[in-house]
């Protein structure tokens, strides 16, 4: 187990270095941050001053060297736009994104797995067909369109929920969370549903396919023959076996919800990381983009690790030592 985790860590460092080089070169190729940042009325003297103040007057390799040196001591540089440490700018907005992602995944799982089970067990019923048709709609509609539709229906027409923004927050374990506050939860509901819709459809379809495959297998027949109750067969034997692929997908999807909730965040004016990173890319705010990708890479690697460990819990046949990733 320890060797496995150490090997993973070494890979992580490599991936981080590659990512940072790619972002540095990428932004360098896109354009000159100073052109985006200085006021258009500024003259050349002011442009040169800004370039020097942001450290952009040095050659690129020197800028990268400086970045690496500071990064080793945990400093990913100051944001060009906000003038504050890039890491802090991102971490300030992280709770907003995390709570939205978690709420969305909870909605997707709590609704998705039962519906998928039902559709898998009674594939011929009308209800099951309706669920499957709905799931196709769920992942073929574009997120921003569904988002606007949700706003028009629930906020503008019915007036049940607020249209945009994040509600009041409650301090919890040092992080400011809004979903623990009733009004905050109301604000989070629409964006979370919007974000959950695609994942929900995915989980329904995956669960159904797994159920269809597994109910025909011998162990289910044996359990039934043994006279176990229907609930025990489903809840213990079947569910445990179909969980393995589901955990993988849910894990990776959680990562993608956190990292790429950009469209939903901008439609619902949700002050999270996704909106920040899009603005930062437009303004060529390199320190923020680099730091964001570093965090994302770390997060994906972390989630993968957790998923692998969960495997071994769910399925005793899987041993981490032999896993090749």
């Amino acid at each position, binding site marked *: 187990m320890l060797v496995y985790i150490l090997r993973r860590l070494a890979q992580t460092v490599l991936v981080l270095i590659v990512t940072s080089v790619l972002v540095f070169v990428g932004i360098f190729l*896109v*354009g*000159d941050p*100073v*052109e*985006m*940042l*200085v*006021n*258009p*009325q*500024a*003259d*050349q*003297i*002011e*442009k040169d*001053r*800004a370039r020097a*103040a*942001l450290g952009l007057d040095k050659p690129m390799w020197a800028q990268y060297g400086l970045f690496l040196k500071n990064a080793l001591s945990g400093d990913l540089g*100051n944001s*060009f*736009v*906000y*003038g*504050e440490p890039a890491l802090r*700018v991102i971490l*300030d*907005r992280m709770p907003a994104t995390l709570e939205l992602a978690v709420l969305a995944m909870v909605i997707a799982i709590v609704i998705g797995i039962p519906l998928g089970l039902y559709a898998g067990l009674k594939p011929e019923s009308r209800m099951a067909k309706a669920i499957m048709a709905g799931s196709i709609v769920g992942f073929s509609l574009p997120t*921003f*369109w569904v988002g*606007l*539709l949700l*706003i*028009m*229906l629930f*906020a*503008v*027409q019915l*007036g049940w929920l*607020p*249209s*945009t*923004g*994040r509600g009041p927050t409650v301090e919890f374990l040092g992080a400011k969370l809004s979903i623990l506050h009733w009004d905050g939860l109301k604000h989070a509901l629409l964006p979370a549903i919007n974000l959950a819709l695609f994942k929900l459809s995915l989980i329904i379809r995956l669960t159904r396919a797994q159920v269809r495959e597994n109910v025909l297998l011998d162990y289910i027949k044996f359990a039934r023959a043994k006279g176990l109750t229907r609930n025990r067969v489903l809840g213990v034997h079947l569910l445990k076996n179909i969980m393995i692929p589901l955990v993988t997908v849910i894990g990776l999807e959680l990562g993608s919800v956190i990292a790429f909730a950009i*469209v939903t965040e*901008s*439609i*619902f*004016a949700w*002050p999270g990381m996704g*909106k*920040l990173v899009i*603005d930062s*890319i*437009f*303004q*060529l705010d390199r320190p923020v983009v680099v730091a964001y990708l570093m965090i994302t890479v770390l997060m994906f690697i972390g989630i993968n690790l957790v998923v692998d460990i969960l495997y071994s819990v769910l399925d005793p046949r899987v041993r981490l030592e032999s896993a090749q990733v």
Partner: protein
Amino acid sequence: MIRRLAARLFVAASAFAAAGVPLHASAQSTELVIALSAPLSSMDPHFHNLTPNNGLSKHVFENLIQTDEFQNLRPGLAESWKAVNDTTWEFKLRRGVKWHDGSEFTAEDVLATFKRAPEVPNSPASFALFVKPIIDVKAPDPHTLVMKTAAAHPLLPRDMTSVQIIHRSMVAAKTEDFNSGKAMIGTGPFRFVEYKPGDRVVLARNDTYWGPKPAWSRVQFRMITNSAARVAALLSGDVQMIENVPTADMEKIARDPNLTVKSAVSNRIIYLHMDSGREKNSPFVRTKDGKPMEANPLRDVRVRRAISKSINRDAIVERVMEKQAVPAGQFLAETFFGTSKKLPPEKFDPEGAKKLLADAGYPNGFQLTLHAPNNRYVNDEKIAQAVAQFLTRVGIDTKLETMPSNIFFSRGSKLEFSFLLAGWGSESGDTSSPLRALVGTFDTAQGLGSANRGRFSSAGLDAMITTAMTQLDDTKRGMLLAAASEKAMAEQGIVPLHYEVSAWAARKGLAYQARADQYTFAFDVRPAK
């Protein structure tokens, strides 16, 4: 792109919602919620010279001189000012102004501001610009300031409209201190309450304000960058006013009985710049059959005038801009300082354009590529498409290449284009800024031509601009600037297309004075009588 698609879909989605919009928020409540269209980068009034930052800052802090809705100067923290001689200015400060912490406003605060403003660390766009011309400043008494400039600098009063005055004790305050609220002590009509980056700013009324009291005890500014979401927030009553109403939703909002729209011609012009610098081998000029062309036809004023004549500005304004623009014939609309009364928009005249092209020696035209940003100005990509089609019709076969602004401006400043579409907002509210930046000969030492991406150059025009910039008498300077504008247009240093119109929408029952400088001021919003 997503934003634009979303806006289009929004129109479709809201078609069925147009009937009966519920009104949740009452305009009578003393809290006002306004949706801003762009995020702020800081609360520090001297950190980043950016329109959204400056707009918010002016609620808490004030300037020596303020501007009205047409950007004319009016007294602020200074009650009066005058030029004692060519290089000396005297400002009389307002008495009895109290800071939010109760202390009294004096000349010492201004001295502290001038010390801090140019020296904020890591500033991506500093305010040094406005303070730099002042080489010496003294306060003979607590309510008088004497400023000295190296040369005659008639723009000094205009510069003072951009520098927010901070409290003397904050001379060494860090940007973080402003973001946290610690240093947010101003003299303005609102006190700072809370700032959540990327989300909202909350302000409360300053009951000891020296000027007219705001109508609202509390104001929230929410940052909703997606334009369809901003409109939805207004429709649902979550906010009572929005800025930058998307052109696609304009008609629907104007028809809605629960909403009102206010608009004003802005100080931003959309224009075309032509490569008139390179004598030959301009990168995107080709002969009619697509071969590289040695001569640069864009250097010929007749060709540039032909380009101007071939464009139907009324059609662009009507169809592309949904009437949210005004056809342009010079750098700024006539309501602004330093404009000419003799420059109506060029008439659409394709035959005249063909004739000019023939006179210039290009009876069959040539090929050209127009470069334009696609996420910077209202409908920028569509305007560029229309321009390319108009030019193709008179024989200049024009291809179009658009790109995000972060790429566009870097490449444009490296002179990689032959023909480009861009915009210019004159923050100072007079024509000196576009004259100097867009058509002045590129010269870093003199600060001329800083955005002259076509490298247009005319010694005669440069002389006129320089003369105007040393004329302290406002009336005379206005006339000199108007004459310079006329010359710049006669030589077609740029081809003006239109002035953008900025629009605000609010729930019925709110009155707002729309402004040319695009600022959204909560203290200008009042319950309608």
